[in-house]
């Protein structure tokens, strides 16, 4: 699976096309796109900045994808994660999974997202009218990740 950590935006259609062009064996494509929302709880977000650990970020994403490929019959996919300053409405992360069967594509995409949230070294900082603050990690994300260990 293709892994990219980048500051620039991505184009879902171009990524799907790159993965699928000329192929006739794919039955299901699932994509997940994460976006910057303008509200987090009661706080109106003006901007979000994503910090990352270069090198380790790519390594962790590759590990997560390798586990997914081991667990589900995937025919390919990609993970693209951005860093740097992002405004509400902007794209943060893209996961694409390809499979002959829809269930594998759905489950693998959700698995990759759940693991990525707790295992990939990215940190979000939100800027609101009251100032900036680091986003706290969520217990619910850790729980979601645990469900895959069964």
């Amino acid at each position, binding site marked *: 699976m293709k892994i990219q950590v980048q500051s620039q935006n991505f184009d879902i259609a171009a990524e799907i096309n790159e993965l699928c062009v000329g192929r006739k064996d794919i039955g299901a494509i699932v994509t997940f796109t*994460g976006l910057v929302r303008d509200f987090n709880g009661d706080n109106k977000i003006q901007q979000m900045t*994503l*910090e*990352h*650990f270069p*090198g*380790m970020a790519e*390594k962790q994403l590759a590990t997560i994808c390798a586990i997914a490929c081991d667990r589900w019959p995937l025919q390919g996919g990609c993970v693209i*994660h951005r860093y740097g300053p992002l405004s509400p409405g902007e794209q*943060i*992360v893209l996961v694409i999974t390809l499979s002959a069967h829809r269930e594998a594509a759905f489950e693998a995409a959700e698995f990759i*997202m759940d693991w*990525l*949230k*707790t*295992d*990939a*070294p*990215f*940190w*979000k*900082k939100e800027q609101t009218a009251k100032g900036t603050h*680091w*986003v*706290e*990690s*969520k217990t619910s994300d850790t729980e979601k990740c645990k469900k895959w260990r069964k």
Partner: protein
Amino acid sequence: MELLYFARIRENIGHSSETLPQPGNVSDVKDLIGHLREQGDNYKAAFENELAIRVAINQTHVNFDHPVDDGDEIAFFPPMTGG
């Protein structure tokens, strides 16, 4: 040892990396955190709450009882919030 700091921990400390010869009494991550806490209020704030610290040695997650070596790249950061 090469130390890297990210996110809140980097901001608390005030810089993102430094090189430190392995102190004699430091053999694992827990020792190293103890040593760093004594380096000033900025370090003390950075490492105050152990539950809010994650460590990677040479880009691999490790626990606090993992040994550290003078040649290691040791990164400290808060729980991750990507995606």
